[in-house]
């Protein structure tokens, strides 16, 4: 067998296994979402809110150059329906007027606040409390990165649970009540992830997303579909196996003491810097709990929604995807000892190999496979051409099938896009994304692998339009 043939078989094997996993997780997600919707009807938020069951929560929102969105996001955080919570905005040495805008909007005054842990972080410049809403605190610090800001927030968290959110995300009013459920129902819960949805194109009124529409920008629309696949199919399916491996940095709830025991977020100051601090923390929580033989659960709830602005230009999207890929590889290679290690049970045997080999290293195989197929196409004669064509056709149809299944998952559960035209757009996007968008994504992910191998550590800039620009705003 020639090296090209070996590569072709490897690519086919990768393709079959990856898509088999996608199918299995989607099918499991289907039944889980059905069950989840029924339970949600049976067990409304109002029952929980009046129960006295709900533990206090501190929301930590790191903000770096967020002058466009910080006030609106903070208003949205302060408007949540939850009995006892604090909002801690950590200004990570912003160079713009983030702090000034917060001071003006919330009438901040300097105030002391004790620490509950002592992770090393960049220097604190000031701690402020709002005169208008005393449960809002702003910590102004030197620039140290997002993970450093989150560690600062944890240091100042006094409640048993903390919720990590992005300062540019908008949480739905019921988000905390819903994401906290696993903590009430299972005392072994140490972390819970929520679903992230795309806000571009929707209307925001007084910090609340009121009229949900598909984004006008084509790139953003593709991302809506991608988020369906990732959050409704992928994460929901993996959750069924207690294998939640990723909790998005944009919205996750954590047991403070467990995170402190695990060493907090990884930063330069704690000895390991990564751009995938959210993935790394979850992998480390799995690792620490399994090594200590401590019963634990890391859950995912498909309903508490955080709305976020997604990139609308190829350049920014490229940066984001490349960074995600790098973050995944940095996090998994740091804990490579978990790979196929019986000590780590289903994480070592299922989740870790999937995320490291299929998702992390997948782009290398995909790209090599492309090259091999093109080689065969031009050198293998008419038989090879037919085979290659059939293979690409099957990949195309399979991609569409998975997207359609993800759309069904949305329809069976939350139906956030109410118009029939949105549904037809989603179908159309499932077809269109196979011509260019998927290939671009593969290329960006490959670039992420390359930057990981080069040891690059920068985040890259994310241009924010604010909730008043790309997003329609009222009120």
């Amino acid at each position: 067998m020639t090296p090209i043939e070996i590569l072709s078989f490897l690519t086919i094997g990768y393709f079959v296994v990856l898509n088999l996993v996608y199918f299995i997780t989607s099918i499991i997600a289907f039944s889980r979402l059905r069950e989840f919707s029924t339970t949600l009807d049976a067990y409304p938020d109002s029952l929980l809110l009046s129960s006295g069951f709900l533990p206090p929560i501190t929301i930590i929102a790191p903000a770096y150059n967020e002058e466009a969105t910080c006030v609106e996001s903070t208003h949205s955080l302060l408007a949540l329906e939850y009995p006892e919570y604090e909002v801690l905005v950590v200004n990570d040495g912003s160079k713009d007027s983030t702090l000034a805008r917060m001071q003006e909007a919330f009438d901040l005054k300097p105030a002391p606040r004790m620490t509950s842990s002592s992770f090393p972080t960049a220097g604190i410049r000031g701690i402020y409390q709002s005169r208008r809403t005393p449960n809002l605190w702003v910590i102004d610090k030197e620039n140290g990165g997002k993970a450093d800001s989150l560690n600062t927030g944890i240091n100042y968290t006094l409640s048993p649970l903390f919720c990590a959110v992005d300062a540019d995300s908008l949480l739905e009013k019921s988000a905390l009540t819903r994401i906290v459920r696993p903590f009430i129902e299972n005392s072994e819960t140490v972390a819970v992830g929520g679903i992230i949805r795309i806000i571009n194109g929707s209307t925001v009124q007084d910090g609340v997303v009121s009229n949900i529409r598909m984004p006008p920008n084509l790139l953003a629309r593709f991302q809506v579909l991608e988020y369906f696949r990732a959050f409704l199919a992928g994460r929901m399916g993996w959750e069924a196996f207690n294998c939640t491996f990723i909790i998005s940095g944009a919205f996750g709830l954590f047991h403070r003491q467990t995170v402190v025991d695990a060493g907090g977020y990884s930063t330069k100051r704690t000895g390991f810097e990564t751009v995938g601090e959210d993935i790394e923390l979850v992998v480390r929580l799995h690792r620490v709990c399994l090594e200590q033989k401590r019963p634990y659960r890391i859950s995912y709830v498909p309903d508490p929604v955080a709305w976020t602005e997604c990139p609308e230009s190829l350049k920014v999207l490229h940066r984001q995807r490349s960074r995600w890929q790098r973050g995944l590889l940095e996090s998994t290679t740091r804990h490579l000892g978990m790979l196929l290690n019986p000590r780590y049970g289903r994480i070592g045997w299922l989740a870790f190999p999937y995320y490291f080999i299929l998702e992390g290293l997948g782009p290398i195989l995909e790209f090599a496979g492309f090259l091999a197929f093109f080689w065969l196409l031009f050198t293998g004669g008419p038989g090879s051409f037919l085979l290659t064509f059939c293979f690409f056709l099957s990949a195309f149809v399979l991609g569409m099938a998975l997207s359609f299944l993800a759309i069904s998952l949305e329809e069976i559960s939350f139906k956030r896009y109410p118009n029939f035209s949105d549904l037809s757009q989603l179908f159309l996007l499932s077809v269109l994304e196979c011509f260019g968008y998927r290939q671009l994504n593969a290329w960006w992910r490959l670039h992420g692998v390359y930057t990981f191998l080069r040891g690059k550590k920068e985040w890259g800039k994310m241009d924010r339009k604010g909730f008043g620009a790309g997003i329609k705003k009222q009120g």
Partner: protein
Amino acid sequence: MKDPVRSWLEHFGAFNPALPQHWVLLMLTDSILLLTLMTIIFALMAIILRLQFNRRERYWQMLNSKWDKDILDVLSGDRDIDDFRMLVESGQQLDFIRFLAPFAYRLRGSDLDILSQLAQPHLSHVEQRLQHKSPGVRIWAINILGLFGMPAKEDAIAALLTDRSPAVAMFAASTLLSHQRTRFVVPVIEQIHRFNKWNIHALADLLVRSGPKAIPMMINFYLDVRQPARTRVVIAEALGRCNAYSALNSAMLVLGSDTNRDVLVATMHLLGHISQGRHTDSIRMLCNSPDEVLKITALRTLRAMAVQSDVPLFRKALDDKNSWVARQAAMALRDLGDVAHLQALAARDDHPRCMLARQILAELPS
């Protein structure tokens, strides 16, 4: 059955079983056909789900417009309950119950009684749902029967205390105890071990709903060392929340004889609610415990009933390396009026408790 794709290829002479690549081609072609079929099925599924949802929305709007005004008329006494019953057609019984439930969650007293009377003829349909295979539906049925069907349906709900789903059992327990059905307190306590993953405070709140008549039963279980520690912890927390002064001697007995850390912590919480400054010596001893959790809890409990002579104990605890211990001590010193000591610490930038002292002082009422 012969593969139709193979037959089709053979028909055109494009398939030779001796060639491996033809088998690969056949496999790929079959996969494409299968995947195309699946894609169509998924698309149809999404469309059907959307149509079903839209139809259901329209149906629900129709029912709302049909019943909305009438229900307000019945509640205000402008219309007779029996007239309203005529408006619920066969097949709409469960929808009618779903329509009533949001009103019932908001109303109390005679208004809720009116809604219950309206719901009565249809509760047998809800009762059937107690046997439904989905735990979510069973929970819904329990909630509805708890709203409209008590005490008549309490035995049907009690049967679910041993349901295979702990969540269903939990809701059955919650419903029964919310209506202060004391005869179910013991069966519920006996099931607490099954709720081992639920938050202790949630379980304690559940027991509190059973009312003061349940306190003697709870104390018996609390004193019984054969019971699981978690059950006793939940009961101790519940007794504290009910301010069960009759549990004081039992709590002192447990504090002096038990060794389980969780039970001791819960007992101190209980004493914090009921001791009223009596029997504090045992708590003072635990303020020096090598176990940090016991130490923090003891300091917190003592803080609520401390006297001036406790100031040295709290000053010593303020220097403890554990910041939670120090925080309890600082708050106690503030409560005891030892502000000068805190001010002295706050003025010393190099002191490890400087920031803590500043925060506690900032919390003083101006």
